[in-house]
């Protein structure tokens, strides 16, 4: 998926671009490199973050409680942030601070999605939501839009690639990933992949009344994210935070208010 994203980006920029399997090559290469650290324990936080995110994806696929999945994902992200702090370098430090702001920016919309889904399906259980035959994206349109707004934050794409970003040079050198190399960096890549899967999985749930629409929607959204990535410049973190909360408030909470009136 990440490879397709790079290919799309390249084509949009008029280039040929790398093979779509490039990210795998990148990760494999990183495993072969020497590991360098600034502080001995920093890589361990990354390892833990990876273990937790795999666990979370497992939970998600197994159909557990959506709230728990979201909280487990947050746990994984926090370990990653702590690793950035541990690395004790200015760039990773600011990267971690910004990553925290990013998490605080997207949390409301994600949790609101869970609440919205509960209101329609009367359960937080992913399996139940999945098997529900009512299309969720119609009554939850506002929440869906809010979620789409914050999705670039979760996927670390412009205009919200504040703490670290893949291709472009950016103001923080590599932000939170600056002091990680070799295996740890490879693990961070893999963590991002899993996070993308979960993030898109939630989109899938919105459309899960029909599996095909779900898959199509998830891919379409990913494609959209690529285009958005290439069309926008980065915003200041203050703007990211305030705009995402504003959107979550107006679209997300508005949606919930309307729903609760309708159901009464």
């Amino acid at each position, binding site marked *: 998926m990440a490879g397709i994203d790079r290919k799309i980006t390249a084509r949009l920029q008029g280039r040929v671009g790398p*093979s779509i399997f*490039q990210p795998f090559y*990148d990760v494999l290469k990183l495993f072969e*490199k020497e*590991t*360098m650290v600034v502080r001995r324990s920093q890589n361990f936080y990354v390892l833990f973050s990876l273990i937790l995110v795999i666990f979370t994806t497992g939970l998600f696929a197994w159909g557990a409680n959506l709230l728990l999945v979201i909280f487990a994902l947050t746990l994984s992200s926090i370990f990653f942030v702590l690793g950035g702090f541990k690395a004790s370098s200015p760039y990773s430090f600011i990267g971690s601070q910004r990553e925290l702001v990013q998490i605080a920016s997207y949390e409301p919309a994600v949790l609101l999605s869970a609440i919205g889904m509960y209101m329609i399906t009367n359960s937080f259980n992913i399996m139940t939501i999945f098997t529900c035959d009512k299309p969720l994206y119609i009554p939850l349109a506002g929440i869906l839009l809010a979620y789409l707004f914050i999705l670039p934050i979760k996927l670390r794409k412009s205009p919200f690639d504040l703490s670290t970003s893949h*291709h472009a040079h950016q103001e923080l050198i590599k932000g939170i990933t600056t002091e*990680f190399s070799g295996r740890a960096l490879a693990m961070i890549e893999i963590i991002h992949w899993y996070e993308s899967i979960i993030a898109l999985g939630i989109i899938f749930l919105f459309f899960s009344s029909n599996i095909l629409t779900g898959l199509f929607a998830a891919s379409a959204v990913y494609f959209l994210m690529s285009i958005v990535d290439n069309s926008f410049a980065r915003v200041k973190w203050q703007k990211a935070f305030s705009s995402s909360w504003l959107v979550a408030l107006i679209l997300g909470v508005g949606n919930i208010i309307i729903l609760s009136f309708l159901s009464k």
Partner: protein
Amino acid sequence: MLKKSPWVIHYDASSCNGCDIEVLACLMPRFDAERLGIINVGNPKHADIFLVTGSVNEANKEIIQNIYNQMPDPKVVVAVGICACTGGIFAECYNVSGGVDKILPVDVYVPGCAARPEAIIEGVAKGLEILETKRKKLRRMAKGLEELTITQADPSDASEILYLQHLAFQSEAEIYNDFSLSPLRQTKDEIIEDFKKRTFFKAVMNYTIVGVARSRMEGNVCYIGRIAVNPAYQNMGIGKKLLQAVEEHFNTADFFQVYTSHKSKRNIYMFERMGYTWFKKERVSENRERIYFKKKNIKD
């Protein structure tokens, strides 16, 4: 997999920016280095290939060293443009030391003024092959099969020696929580001065100095000091080999003398295994004691 995903860090040493613009052009649609998987990362810790443009002068010597040292192995250095190769048209200026190979082991030279994007990409591709070779060497070395050469060092190795001392004595300093140890506080000039009074031996593996020892002869005793081995290459017997090399070189001495601090168990063990016995203990600071070892030279 290194060949498929080379990540580049680009540093402008003292370039006129001509070569730098050509490097950037490589990323543009016309040449598109990314289709080969090349990404320009801004951070040495993520990079495999070090692209240097421009020549080396006093201001950027240490910086280039620093960036090079912060790159994880295996790594290659590509000198882009004639200034990076030999100094170019500025080679005889008073402040220019010359090309990058004055301070770093360069793997690929890409001449030109400015070097063309096609040449740069070709240079990077050649660098990739060298990278593969290095990677294999690294693998073998990790299994202890790589050859180690021990020779006498000269003043041009001073910066590597300084960095090595810093690295190796870091762990000593951690043990005693004393960062004022003299090996850590030396400057490069002091090391160059020391070359006049001491004989330095270096252990080289894979083009990098991984161990160093210094020695001097006074009367009939050969004093050996500051045996430093890169922490990543410790426990491979390099310290022992250095000691042996020194002993061989000064085989006219009657005694060999060496010292270490009381908590450095590994050093103590190494000396004792090589036939040294301790004969004096001296308190140097509040929490540190120095132990002196001596060995009689068995001359044949």
